[in-house]
Every structure is written in structure tokens, then in C-alpha cells.
């Protein structure tokens, strides 16, 4: 089964069909101008990113001289050596991987478990459940009441604060619910006749048939978990539980504080810390950069899934 919206993907799909009308001069000019502007636009995104990538490989003298956009005077791996020597980084990397891995699996499964009964129109109380869900999409208690809740649940400074509060999202439930509805009823009925329970049907029929939707939810949640820094900032003060994002934040804020004091002695520290900053940035985005080209299709079709419902 494929995502029903995949064919609507904005990738591909040339609209010119059949009769080819002779290109007028105006059309040619338009096409050239169009491609030139889009190229400039793309460069505005790519050049700064490249600048960061290559700066992370610049030696500390090259960094303090600046004076380059595309290629520094001197390359070196010192920044990475300094970062890798730090056991705190490895720990943060481990926390990031753990929170993303555990978070994605539990979130996707939890949402699927809730979405399955909701996908059945005969479910008693369905109206109440979906009203509750919609309320959660539009109203929230905000930062302070949520903080007090997490605190009273004893989740401050625990690993579980990364997992439990983000188990559920009604938005994702809607996406899964719509997908589950496309599974033909006859499949479920024949399993029921063979004596399968609802649990069994869900686990052995619905879940395996819904892999594309589950993958989409998992990917979005994965990016969110990897990038999430607010949870740590709000609820975690124990450095042993810091993920990469929070560690990077600390490095950045310290360097900023040093630069605002403007002392001469700070300049030297600043240059080294800038190298460390750049290398940490690279390590933090690497997983996303590696996965991105392969999974981009899912991101795009996933956005459509959500949008169709709206």
C-alpha cells in the first residue's frame, strides 16, 4: 500500500502534456530569468552552510584571521580533536541517540494504539474522545502550568521527561487514523472470523500494512526529538542528562558572554571556543544531513497528509 497522497507530491509531475506550443521569445526570457533567480536563491542557502562546514576544518590561526568565505588559508582537524577528546560530548551524543531512539518508538506506537480504536466509527464515546483530542490541539496550559505539572510528577531531572510528555500528539493520531481507515474491512473481518482479537488484528494486520504512515510519523518525531532543546532547558539541570543540542547551547552562550565582555584576554579563548563551537555544530547536524536526502520524500508527503485533514 502506498501513501494515497504520494502522487500529489510536488516533486516531478511535469504539467506540459500533448501539444507543444512554439516557445515565444517572452517565454524564453521568462525561463532564463526564472532559473537565474532560483540559482541565486539556492546559493543564499548553500554558501553560508558551506562556510560553516569549511570553517569547522580551519586552523585556529585561519579562524582568527577570518578573511575567507569558501576556503581557509590553512586546514586542520584540531577543532574535532578537541571536541572528541571531551568525554562530555560522547555522553551528550549518547543521550541524544537514546532519547531519539526510545522517543520515536514509543511515540509512534502509542499514537498508533490510540488511533486504531478512533478509526472505528462504531466506537462508543468516540465523539467525546475526538473532542478532547481537538481541544488539546488548540489549547494548552502554557509554559508555567506545564512546568508545575512535570515538577509534581517528579520528572524533573530524569531521562523520562524526554519520553513521556511527548508520547502523544493528536495531530499524529489523526494522520494515522485516516490511514487505518483505508485498510479494507474484509481483511479485518476474515481475521475476526478466524478468532483473532482486536489486539491481534491491530498488531498483525493494521500495523504491518501501515508502514508508510508509521514511517512518516516516526521521521517527523525523530527530527523533533533530535532537535529538541527546550525540554532540557526547562526541566533538566543535571549535565549528565544533557543531549547534544543543550551542550551546544551552553558552548554558544559561554562564547557569547565572553565576547560581550570585550576583554583582550578573552579574544584568545574566543577563537578556540569558536572552533569547538563549529565542530560541535557539525557533529550535531551530521545525522540529519546524512539521512535527509533519503527520507526527504517522506517529509514532503507527510506534510500533505496533515494538510489534507486541515
Amino acid at each position: 500500500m502506498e501513501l494515497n497522497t504520494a502522487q500529489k507530491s510536488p516533486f516531478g509531475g511535469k504539467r506540459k502534456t500533448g501539444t507543444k506550443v512554439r516557445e515565444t521569445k517572452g517565454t524564453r526570457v521568462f525561463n532564463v530569468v526564472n532559473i537565474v533567480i532560483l540559482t541565486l536563491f539556492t546559493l543564499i542557502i548553500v554558501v553560508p552552510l558551506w562556510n560553516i562546514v569549511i570553517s569547522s576544518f580551519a586552523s585556529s590561526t585561519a579562524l582568527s584571521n577570518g578573511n575567507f568565505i569558501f576556503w581557509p588559508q590553512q586546514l586542520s582537524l584540531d577543532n574535532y580533536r578537541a571536541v572528541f577528546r571531551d568525554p562530555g560530548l560522547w555522553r551528550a551524543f549518547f543521550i541524544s541517540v537514546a532519547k531519539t531512539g526510545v522517543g520515536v518508538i514509543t511515540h509512534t506506537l502509542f499514537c498508533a494504539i490510540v488511533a486504531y480504536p478512533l478509526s472505528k466509527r462504531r466506537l462508543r464515546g468516540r465523539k467525546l474522545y475526538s473532542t478532547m483530542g481537538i481541544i488539546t490541539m488548540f489549547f494548552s496550559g502554557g509554559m508555567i502550568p506545564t512546568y508545575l505539572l512535570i515538577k509534581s510528577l517528579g520528572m524533573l531531572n530524569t531521562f523520562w521527561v524526554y519520553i513521556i510528555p511527548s508520547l502523544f500528539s493528536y495531530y499524529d493520531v489523526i494522520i494515522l487514523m485516516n490511514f487505518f481507515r483505508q485498510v479494507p474491512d474484509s481483511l479485518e473481518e476474515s481475521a475476526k472470523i478466524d478468532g483473532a482479537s482486536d489486539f491481534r488484528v491491530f498488531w498483525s494486520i493494521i500495523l504491518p500494512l501501515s508502514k508508510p504512515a508509521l514511517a512518516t510519523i516516526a521521521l517527523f518525531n525523530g527530527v523533533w526529538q533530535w532537535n529538541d532543546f527546550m525540554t532540557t532547558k526547562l526541566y533538566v539541570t543535571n549535565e549528565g542528562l544533557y543531549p547534544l543540542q543543550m551542550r551546544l547551547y551552553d558552548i554558544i552562550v559561554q562564547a557569547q558572554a565572553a565576547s560581550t565582555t570585550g576583554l583582550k584576554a578573552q579574544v584568545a579563548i574566543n577563537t578556540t571556543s569558536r572552533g569547538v563551537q563549529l565542530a560541535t555544530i557539525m557533529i550535531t547536524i551530521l545525522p540529519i544531513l546524512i539521512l535527509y536526502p533519503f527520507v526527504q520524500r517522506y517529509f514532503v508527503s507527510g506534510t500533505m497528509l496533515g494538510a489534507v485533514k486541515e
Partner: protein
Amino acid sequence: MNSIPAGRKRSVSSRMKTWFADFRSQWQMQSMMLPGVIFMIVFNFIPIYGLTLAFKSYSVTDTIAGAKWNGWQNFQTIMNDKYFWQAVWNTVGISAIKLTIEFFLPIALAIMIYEVNWLPFKKIVQTITYLPHFLSWIILGGMLINWMSSNGLINQFLGLLGIGSHANYMLDANKYWNIAAWSDVWKEVGWGTILYLATMAGIDPTYYEAAEMDGASKLRQIWSITLPGISSIISLNLILSVSGLFGSNLDQTLVLMNSQNQPRAEVINSYVYRVGLTQGDFSYATAVGLGVSVISVILLVAANMVTKKLNDNQSVL
């Protein structure tokens, strides 16, 4: 006459009986639903109840229910809090720049991408422009600080044009609004085209063929076919933009704010964070958060009403 309500009562109670019988027979389904219901009550509805804090004076030793009511006192304090109003001014200033650009630019970009017939180029442009959306604000903040530094990318580039300096723009409070707004544009503009492109893919290609036959120029085709085709998404985004005027980005502010630019960088969210979690004034911070959300909802409803009027009484929400 008395028999009718009695009869109705009977049917209600028997209907309830079948309802409960159905409910019991669905125990497997209902038990799958239960974790979701518990989650929503604990993590969504209890914090919503916690909003009552806005009308209370709460100290760390209190419980939310046990704290003393103090009516509108917190909101009266807000009125005279000049730091709050400064945060509101910054929020609206940054949002106004950001939302205007992020409303118009994705439409233009989507149309330009749609008009490309050279498929590999189209894919490259899309892949690259979507990418920044997936970077966290911490990463982008770290990058920005590097680009804006005294010998960073921006000064190198301006140097090529002969107007370079050795200023660190992150320390210049007067530049902060633009830095915050334009960096958000850089991050989100590509991603903002997705809905438009998907909608354009649904426009009947024969419209364009017919227009071409009749000698309509490219710009004319965009104006008369493409734009009307995406008008519902345009109004949807317009509504969301207007209601986002008081929205602020806490991640971005926390990473870009420093002691030099703070007077122009403090936004409502970061103010709530600072007053509530750093200074421990929970009730006051809740009141600020609640007040701003209420204003945002009012803006959303108002914007929806206006677009509905413009859109032949059809709501796009």
C-alpha cells in the same frame, strides 16, 4: 399527555443500556483508547486547569488548588510593567517583518519553482531550500553568531563589495530585529512552498495549454490561472500570519540574546520564561502567557472573519 415523557424516558434508559452493553462488548477497543484518554487528562487538561494560577497568588510552597485567589491583580500589574511592554513591542516588531516576508516570499518562490521545466534543477532547488527547516534553532543560532562575527561571512562578503567592517552584528541591539526576522525567513521560506506546490500540482494543465494557444504571456498565465488556483491556501496562510503577530520564538531568542542586545531581543515568551522559571513568579508569568494567548485567539477569529468576507463567505479554516 403524561405518557409521552414517560415513554421517552424509558427509551432513553434502554438506549443507555444498549450503549453500555456496546461499550462492554468493545472492551478491547476501549482499553486501547484508555492510555490516550489518561494522557490527555494528565498532560493537557491538568495544565489547562493550571491556568487558574493567573488569577491567584502562588508561592512555591502552595499547590495550584490551594493558592489564594487575587482576582485581576496580576493583570493590573501587567498594565504597569514596562519590561512587559518592551517585550510586546519587540515581539510585534520582529513578527511584523518576519510574517510579511514569510507571507509573500513563499508564494513567489513556489510559482518560480513550479514554472521550471528542467526536472533535475527543480529537485535540487527544492532539496536545498527545504533543508534549513530541519536545523534546530540552536544550530542555526550557532551558525548565525559565526556569520555575524567581526571576521565572519557577512563582513567578508561586505568586504568584497568594499563596505566591510569589523563590527560584531550580534552585539548591535539596533540590528537585532532584522537578524531575528531574516534568519527565520532563511530557515522557513523553502518549506513554506510545499503546500502551494501541492495545490498547484492539482491545477488542470489544459488551462495553461488553452491560455498559451490564445497567446497569453507567462506572467498573464501566473496572474490568471496559478494565483486563483492557490487562493485558498493564500488566505489560510494570511489568517495564520495575522494570528501569529504576538507569537515569539523562545528557542531563537534564548540562543541569540546576549547582554548587549537584550533590550531589543526580549520577546513575550522569553519574558514569561525569565519571570516564571528564573525569578519564580509563577502566577504573574502565567497571567502574561494567558493574556497573550487570548489576544492571539481574538486575532485569529477576526482575521478569519475578514477573509471570510473577502472569500464569498467561505471560511478557509
